[in-house]
């Protein structure tokens, strides 16, 4: 199997977002960058296939040199090599997807994995766009995955409101991973050492034009701390009254 996992670098979940001077992006000073959490499930899904079926796993990222850090992080978990699609352009899901689709078009990929969304822009779009651009079937927000390598078929489950859909698709295809799909392995010390000598190919992204433009970024209106109604169950009747009469939500 030829497996690709697209990985992204994002600010960690503890980040306190500050709007940068330009009023359109976040202030990136003092930000700790990590491998996008959902991508870890995608990495693990590919590595589990490689554990069972002879496979080559390549981690792909679009961005600047610092994206090599997340490729190395994934390589420390396992897999064979990395691919950095170098781009300094301010893009959006469609431009990132174009770059990935162009780079993977003729690679003979069997499965291209993504996290279900990046936790920075939260668009949950790139994976599906790549599938469309390459003319491949896809399943998104996948929480269970069964691959039949012989039949080149995947049966998986994706999360929907209050339930799951079972999706059938044939290889080659795109899968986006949701938390719950697996328990990502921790990189071993040996894995971290080995990752240092695994190759990362660098290619230049073609020129892309974003069709979306951020005109302003701001913090959401701060909530005013509300009322503390008490310190034991004697406060409950007042809480219920307020919810019923003032907030009118019950």
């Amino acid at each position: 199997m030829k497996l690709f996992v697209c990985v992204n670098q994002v600010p960690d979940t503890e980040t306190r977002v500050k709007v940068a001077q330009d009023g359109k992006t976040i202030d990136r000073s003092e930000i700790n960058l990590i491998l996008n959490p959902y991508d870890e499930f995608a990495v693990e899904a590919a590595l589990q296939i490689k554990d069972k079926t002879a496979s080559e796993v390549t981690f792909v990222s679009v961005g600047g040199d610092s994206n090599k850090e997340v490729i190395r992080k994934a390589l420390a978990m396992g897999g064979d090599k990395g691919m950095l699609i170098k781009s300094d352009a301010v893009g959006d899901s469609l431009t990132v997807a174009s770059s990935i689709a162009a780079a993977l078009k003729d690679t003979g990929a069997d499965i291209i994995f993504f996290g279900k969304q990046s936790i920075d822009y939260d668009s949950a779009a790139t994976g599906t766009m790549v599938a469309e651009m390459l003319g491949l079937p896809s399943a998104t927000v996948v929480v269970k995955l069964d691959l039949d390598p012989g039949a080149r078929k995947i049966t998986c489950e994706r999360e929907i409101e209050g339930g799951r859909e079972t999706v059938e698709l044939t290889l080659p295809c795109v899968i986006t991973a949701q938390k719950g799909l697996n328990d990502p392995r921790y990189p071993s010390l040996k894995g971290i050492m080995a990752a240092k000598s695994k190759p990362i190919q660098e290619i230049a992204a073609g020129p892309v034009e974003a069709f979306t433009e951020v005109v302003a970024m701001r913090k959401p209106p701060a909530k005013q701390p509300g009322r503390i109604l008490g310190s034991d169950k004697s406060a409950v009747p007042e809480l219920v009254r307020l919810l019923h009469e003032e907030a009118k939500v019950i």
Partner: protein
Amino acid sequence: MKILAFAEQRGGKFKKVAFEVVHAAKKLAEEFGGESVALVIGKDIHDIAPQVGGYGIHKAIVAEDNRLEFYSTTAYSKIVAEVARSLSADVVIISASAMGKDLAPRVAAKLNAGMASDCIDIRRDGESLVATRPVYAGKALIDLVIKSPIGVFTLRPNVFSPGIPDATIASVDKLAVNLTNSDFSSKVTSVSVTKAGRPDLTEAEIIVSGGRGLGGPDNFKMIESCADVLGAAVGASRAVVDAGWRPHEDQVGQTGKTVSPSLYVAVAISGAIQHLAGMSSSKYIVAINKDKDAPIFQVADYGIVGDAFEIVPELTEQMKKVLGKE
């Protein structure tokens, strides 16, 4: 301006988000002096399609086929893109539901269109259409404009009003569905319900969530009882999910669900920044926590600083009284 609204149905019934999308499309068309059309895809749906009229769109296009009973990313997106092209639509609006989040990026890629996901507002500003959407799980908001000739927008569920329906019946145009087997290269074969009886977090009007302060999975029974009295969904903090007390689909926060209910009750949740990001757009927030310095009180409208094991059962009882469920 011509707007195409995708009206989502499952099992022959419209989802509430369908009417949110229809009503938003209708309002936007009015702002721009344009026209809006609804698209319904599925099996045996021509009887329900006229309902969109009550929410403001007077023309529905129906793509009906037995093979469209369940969602297929490939087949549904082909139909949406073809209809958008044939109408020369300027805007396609889809819910940011599980189906819409999967469908919209494919449609955008087919139409080579810019996309704005999970919008909480779309409005006219001069001659432009400006969308507002949360990023970083709601830690910031962005305003964006789309520069391609056609734009695809998905709307966060539970944020846009479906309006108050009137008795208007929409006219129905049946689309000749022209799909081959290859259009179903990815298809849903069955749907299972995991949480019978309780609403989904992203659709719920009320959510009762529990955190690590509850001490263990068995103590969620108290949360569930309270939720059931309110007809609420049950949520959980990341710590609780990572500890295996609750399934991951219950997680609220940056690596879980982002929710916007009318009422969010946070029980024994301290309020880590990644949790607050996922729920602070709730209309009203109640916090019950024994630590008076817990960050959750900074966003709560009403708080009780005390022992959840004493307060929650009392809250459940009092709610029963108010709601006449004794």
